[in-house]
């Protein structure tokens, strides 16, 4: 069965390997350049905090790197979704399932190899990107941000396994490649958004820091902001919160209305009247814990989808 899987997928495997090799070359060249810029900056302008808008690389390459977030999805759509669906659609499953191998074995072996291939591909791309992003993350401390967290570390491996399982399961249930592709696309994008924008913020109880408005607080390193705002003297947030609360045309506390002529003094006025800023966030030290949790959740989701796939395979006629 391993040989059969290899025979059927070696072209796609070669294509993926070629794309990975091309990406490796591009990222190695541009990444080494960025590292060099970064190191000379560290020795030079960083010491005097005078680097200004230090440019580590061309935006084209930044865009390319951002696009690697699609790797797990593409694997799910073009390896996962057709894996069962294409066989059912063309009837070749009737050939495969009447050789001297059970359907279960057939599905288990090819699922295993394709999951492994997708995980290795996503892992390799993510390792490259993590390295490439190193100087940028050190400079801007944004590794924990949504669109960075998602393309670095081990999370892409979890996404790839999930996308594959989603594709395989959709193909098994829908029995048609194109609908399975569509469901994989929509399902993967939806679930990923749900986690990235909402659920991830709450994997651990966030830390809340209160600070005086005159000395805004920024955590060390790359943090994940959950919420930020202002609380009044009574500890309750005033109406209208947000980063730009004071300067946003929102009601300014009545006591500080007179300060409105001198915007710079509003913060000190509010601070004097007991207003404090707060930041609720996940500190940088939790980055790898969050990577682990996120990966774990997606692997568990994948396991559930594969469980459904095997159950349907057993219960339904070929």
């Amino acid at each position, binding site marked *: *069965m391993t*040989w*059969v899987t290899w*025979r*059927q997928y070696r072209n796609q495997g070669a294509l993926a390997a070629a794309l990975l090799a091309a990406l490796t070359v591009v990222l190695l060249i541009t990444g080494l350049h960025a590292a060099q810029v970064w190191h000379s900056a560290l020795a030079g302008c960083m010491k005097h905090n005078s680097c200004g808008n230090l440019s580590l690389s061309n935006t084209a390459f930044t865009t390319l790197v951002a696009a690697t977030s699609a790797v797990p999805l593409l694997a799910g759509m073009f390896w996962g979704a057709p894996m069962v669906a294409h066989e059912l659609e*063309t*009837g*070749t*499953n*009737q*050939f495969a*399932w*009447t*050789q*001297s*191998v*059970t*359907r*279960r*074995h057939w599905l288990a072996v090819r699922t295993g190899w394709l999951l492994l291939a997708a995980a290795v591909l996503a892992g390799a791309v993510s390792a490259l990107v993590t390295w490439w992003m190193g100087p940028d993350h050190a400079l801007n401390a944004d590794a924990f941000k949504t669109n960075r967290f998602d393309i670095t570390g081990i999370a892409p491996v979890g996404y790839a396994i999930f996308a594959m399982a989603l594709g395989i399961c959709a193909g098994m249930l829908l029995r048609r490649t194109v609908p399975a592709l569509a469901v994989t696309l929509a399902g993967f994008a939806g679930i990923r958004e749900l986690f990235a924008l909402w659920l991830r913020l709450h994997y651990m109880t966030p830390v809340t820091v209160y600070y005086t408005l005159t000395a805004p607080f920024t955590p060390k390193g790359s943090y994940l902001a959950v919420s930020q705002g202002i609380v009044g003297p009574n500890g309750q947030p005033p109406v209208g919160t947000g980063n730009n609360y004071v300067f946003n045309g929102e009601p300014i506390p009545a006591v500080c209305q007179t300060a409105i002529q001198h915007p710079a003094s509003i913060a000190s006025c509010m601070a004097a009247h007991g207003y404090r800023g707060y930041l609720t966030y996940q500190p940088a030290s939790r980055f790898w814990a969050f990577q682990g949790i996120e990966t774990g959740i997606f692997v568990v989701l994948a396991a559930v989808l594969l469980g459904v796939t095997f159950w349907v395979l057993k219960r339904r*006629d*070929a």
Partner: protein
Amino acid sequence: MTPVIETSGLTKRYRRVTALSDCTVSVPEGRISALVGPNGAGKTTLLRLLAGLAAPTAGRAAVLGAAPRQDPAYLAEIGFLAQEIPLYRRLTAQDHIGIGAHLNPRWNGESVRDRLAGLKIPLDRPAGTLSGGQRAQLALALTLAKRPRLLLLDEPLAALDPLARRDFLAALAEAAAGGDLTIVLSSHLIADIERVCDHLILLAGSRVQLCGDTETLLAEHRILAGPRKDTTAIARAHVIVREDTTARQTTLLVRLNGPVIDPAWAVEEPDLEEIVLGYMGQDEAGHGAGHGEARLSAVGEDR
């Protein structure tokens, strides 16, 4: 000796449609059985149930002594060729031989190469680029290379031109010559496969109408033709399968329970096709309303 195939009350329902109902058939070892019936009669369903690709709703099937199941040992005994002749379009014959070699314990890849060489079918071209006849030959060769004890072929001739049909049936007859391979092949036209078959299963309206060795069936049936008259006397002694009446003449297909004595009837031996057509109209009610019947009646009145 136990039959290779034995089913009793085998039934398959898909939501509201009953594809096969109460199917009880038996096929002895070494037979080439023609599974015939109009489109939608349940032929494919029966073959898929026997191959273990589908599970019955009710009843049971025994193939080579046990129920069809997902088990390598069982699957190794069965050769199945689906109607659409599914092969991997991008893979060559050589690739298919490789797949078979990796998935089957008794694989005979050499036999496929020999057969394809004999038919001048290239080993190194993607299956999708072969002609329908070549694909069918390749698929049959692959199925035979498993060395199955039971070969299930679903409408293998449907896509073939007359020459390819002849070649295909010749290959089949050759494979069966050893005597320990049992073959069931379906077709909606008995004429196509009459030549190679020595057993017949007739399905119509999802039910079995007829099952037995062709020799026995031929011996049991007669066509009686005579002036238009009351048939109750015949019906008392024999089973009237079908009755066609015109203004002047009555033609009967009967299943005999002894000799026909009344000299008013001209007795003829039917061929297999006439028997099959005679039974084809039989639906659940046992007479009358099937589409096969309607067509046959129209023909009868023209005469």
